[in-house]
């Protein structure tokens, strides 16, 4: 059985304010931050954790967050760096369904979508202050239609994903664990991947944008439940300790520079 490999797929960058990144604490001012996806080559299949944002969607709905994404930084572009096509991916796992984590789902048209049951509920019935975050429903055309979203333009292949919704902590494949870290959104999974030749990798998803959030114990200003969000950040710290795992935060401009990115990999 070949060793599990982990590829980080660069998805471009976006901008937010320091008061978004660090709730009520800031300092304010523009922060340009990375967005990336994680491809796991596992003997059970290929798993993709999160799928970044769709440039057209962001330019149309949230242009003020100033997306910068080259063709190579799209999901198809990144997969081609390692000789893969979108249909080679078997499972898409979404930490949650904010637009910058599910924008590339639609390319992965032969994959099964795995998520927390509450994450699907949350984007079907968002709170008024979550509408913009859950604005890209292209990953679930059924939900988009129910919420009155626009149908895909003619000529676009109809995307009818299958969903597998789960709850609780789950080992979805040997050494690949999804761990509940709610608060940022209703239904949020972080992911722990065990590898043969290095410490486990703990991908926080948006339960911790950056190492600085963890160090200061300040959650992001985008949240559904700040108490849960805070507990989840503490849980990530505890998990990292328990598994001697290295933490990979979702939107950390400093740390991302030091990560190995595709076609390089961790194993």
């Amino acid at each position, binding site marked *: 059985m070949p060793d599990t490999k982990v590829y980080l797929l660069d998805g471009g960058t976006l901008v937010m*304010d320091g*008061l*978004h990144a660090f*709730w*009520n604490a*800031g300092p*304010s*001012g523009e922060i340009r931050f990375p967005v990336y996806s994680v491809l796991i080559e596992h003997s059970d299949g290929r798993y993709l954790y999160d799928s970044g944002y769709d440039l057209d969607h962001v330019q149309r709905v949230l242009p003020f967050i100033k997306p910068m994404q080259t063709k190579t930084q799209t999901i198809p572009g990144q997969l081609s760096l390692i000789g893969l096509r979108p249909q080679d991916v078997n499972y898409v796992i979404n930490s949650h369904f904010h637009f910058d984590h599910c924008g590339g789902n639609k390319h992965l048209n032969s994959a099964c979508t795995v998520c927390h049951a509450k994450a699907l509920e949350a984007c079907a019935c968002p*709170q*008024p*202050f979550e509408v913009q975050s859950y604005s890209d429903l292209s990953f679930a055309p059924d939900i988009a239609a129910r919420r009155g979203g626009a149908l895909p333009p003619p000529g676009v292949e109809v995307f009818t994903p299958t969903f597998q919704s789960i709850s609780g902590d789950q080992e979805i494949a040997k050494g690949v664990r999804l761990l509940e870290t709610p608060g940022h959104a209703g239904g949020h999974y972080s992911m722990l991947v065990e590898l043969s030749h290095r410490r486990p990798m703990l991908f926080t998803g948006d339960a911790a944008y950056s190492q600085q959030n963890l160090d200061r*114990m*300040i*959650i992001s*200003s*985008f*949240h*559904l*439940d*700040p*108490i849960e969000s*805070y507990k989840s950040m503490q849980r990530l710290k505890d998990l990292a300790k328990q598994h001697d795992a290295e933490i990979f935060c979702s939107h950390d401009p400093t740390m991302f520079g030091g990560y190995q990115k595709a076609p390089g990999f961790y194993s």
Partner: protein
Amino acid sequence: MADTKVYLLDGGTLVIDGFHVFWNRGPAGEVRFPVYSVLIEHGDGRYIFDTGYDYDHVMRVLPFEKPLQTPEQTIVGQLNKLGVKPQDINYVVNSHYHFDHCGSNKHFTTACTVCHAKELEACTCPQPFEHLGYSDLSFYPELARKAGKTLPPDPALDMYTPTFQTLQGDQEIAKGLWLFETPGHTAGHYSMMVELAHRRPMLFTADACYSKKNLDMMCISSFHLDPVANLKSMQRLKDLAAKYDAELFFSHDLDSFATYQKGANFYS
């Protein structure tokens, strides 16, 4: 019985960021906003709703909020202008216990303190992100000492042993004087409505809604415990105003505050 009178007592100003006022929306930039208390002269006694901030506390703990408060804008100074002494106040009602709403409770040594039961619990065991909000515990020295907080060396505080009357649910605490539950900003938050003889009822939102713009945008403030509950409370304020044909008085709205009658110029 004399008509109920309502006096707005100017408590100075503070500064926060536009992203604090309008959660995740902003725009960024300093916003200076007013803080005030409400004195109600009622047939049953004198009530004060909220007591503003203590200048020394803010300078010591949150100087970045740039307090501006003249001696006249302290609660004692404001009451003095009306010929009222702190010991003339019978009840202090706190919408919640954030430092800019309870900073002068300590001057009302003979008043009974009225609040929501959950609010007293909340400031006893604050969430980690609420410590600054609940940083002024001088309204309850015994609690401050239990929490290991050092109070300023003020002999008056050693003597100050307030009595509390905790409530739950909506309550008419005196005829025409209503407390309505509006949680979310904090765990146990009350807004207050006062019915008057010669005008529409006054509905004081307190921090369930900082300003008219918050209400228009249906955007809560970034200081909150439970955003879902907070948004519901803002909707509740709209519904209450419609139901009672009440005028909304916002807690931290510089534009609206400029139009309010203040000091000796009372509402009745």
